[in-house]
Structures are given as C-alpha cells and as structure tokens.
C-alpha cells in the first residue's frame, strides 16, 4: 500500500501511522449522545471510509485518507490541518 502525502509525494505505508476514523468533534463540552458516539461508537463500513493517518517517519503531517475498504482503493489524501477532521 502506498499513500500520496500532500507534502512529500507517494510514499510507502511503512512511513505512516494509522490513528482511526476521522470524526468531527462534537460542539460544546456537555456530555450527551454526540460525545458518546464520538468516544465509543464506530461504523465498520464495507466501502468508503475516512481515516486519520500520520506521516510519522516522513514530514510529520496528519492526514485524512479517504479509501475503500472493499477495493482497497485510496480515493483521496488531504492535510488534516486544511481538510478539518
């Protein structure tokens, strides 16, 4: 598997660290179903998914990778700082 880092270009998977699903953080600090979802509940999609990866051994940037869990196709890689998690 190779990812195209927006900063470094195409690199091998070994340079990347996988964090998990890229979720929008709920607004506010009051506990509620949104926070419960954010902390504990994850979809397990057969299809398109958005994950957070870090180019740990490369430029250090956090990335949002859109990929297909069925075909293993990588559809898009964007800087988390610009795309918003």
């Amino acid at each position: 598997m190779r990812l195209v880092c927006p900063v470094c270009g195409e690199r091998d998977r070994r340079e990347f660290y996988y964090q998990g699903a890229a979720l929008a953080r709920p607004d506010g600090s009051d506990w509620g179903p949104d926070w419960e979802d954010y902390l504990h509940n994850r979809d397990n999609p057969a299809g398109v998914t958005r994950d957070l990866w870090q180019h740990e051994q490369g430029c250090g940037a956090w990335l949002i990778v859109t990929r297909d869990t069925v075909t293993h196709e990588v559809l898009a890689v964007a800087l988390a700082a610009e795309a918003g998690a």
Partner: protein
Amino acid sequence: MVELQAESPGEGRLPVTAGDLRLSEVVRERMTWLAPYKGQAAALSEAMQAAHGMGWPKAGRMTGRKGARAMWFGRDMALLIGPEPDPGLAAHAALVDQSDAWAVLALEGPGAPEVLARLCPLDLRDQVFKRGHVARTEVAHMAGAIARMGADNWRIMVFRSMAGTLIHEVETAMRRVAARRNSPREGADRAHHLP
C-alpha cells in the same frame, strides 16, 4: 579535575569501506531547526535570504551551498546547516540548536542507491531522487533523513543516540552490495539493470 573530551557520533567507528563504497562521518557543522510561526514563512524566507543568502527550501529540497545550506526537514520545518543563525530569524521562527543531536554520515561510491534501497522505502532512481533532493524517511527502522549531494554522494542522518546502529546497518548493506557487484556473473547482470 575531570577533563571532558568532545566526541563525534561516529568517533572511532568510521570510516568504513566495502568495495568502492565508503561510509564516513561528515565534519560537524552548526545545525539549527527553523520552524516558522504561523503566517511567517515568507518573512522568514526573506530574512534567511538577507542574512545567509538562501531562501526557504521547498518540500523535499535544499537551498544554499556548501557551508551555508537550508535543508527541508518536515512540514513547516527546515534545518539551517553551517552558519550561526542570524538573531533576526527569531522574529519569524522558533530556532532550536540541533548541532549535537544528529549523526550525519556520508555514503559515497557507485552502488550507493543500492545500499540505501536495502534500508529505506524511497524511490532512489536517478530520474526521481536527484541532486539537491532530501527526504525524511525510515532508515533501517529509525526515523531519519536521506539527502543526495551529488551523483554518488549521499547523506544519511538519524538521531545521534542511534549512530552505532546506523553504522552497523549501513556497513552490513554495503558489504552485501559490494559482494554482489564483485561476483562476476551477478556483477555483470546487475550492472545491466542499474538505472
């Protein structure tokens, strides 16, 4: 009183050679991390140009020349190699002294890309990784950097504490590459397929 002696990261372990390949330690220079503050990248580049004669390097590239170089070193990060940083740079960027933090080795000789290919997952072919290119990458499972200073002249950097491991790993790869190149049949076959 105890007399403390400064030692370089590869003291007593370098240089090593294998066939036409040579691994040696680069004479230590002042190295400073430059991390521009938000929105200050352009101003920093101008200040660098004025003070040191080189601008901010693009991702994966180096600017300047021997003795005063800026090496891209990560997202919004560069390494100033050679000069003492001009105090004026501090207005635009965080400066961190890295002079003693890194082991900087030079790998020279034909077949150097074959040695590096055994240690890192980069595409090092001539048409892809050219003189003046640099990459942060995994070097023998260590976080490091590889730069190309010339056709057969490469720099390998890892944190200083891992110098011994790096020297061992590179030397092992050098011996294996040299052995293959010296083997009459293999050598001829390989020479044919080199980029």
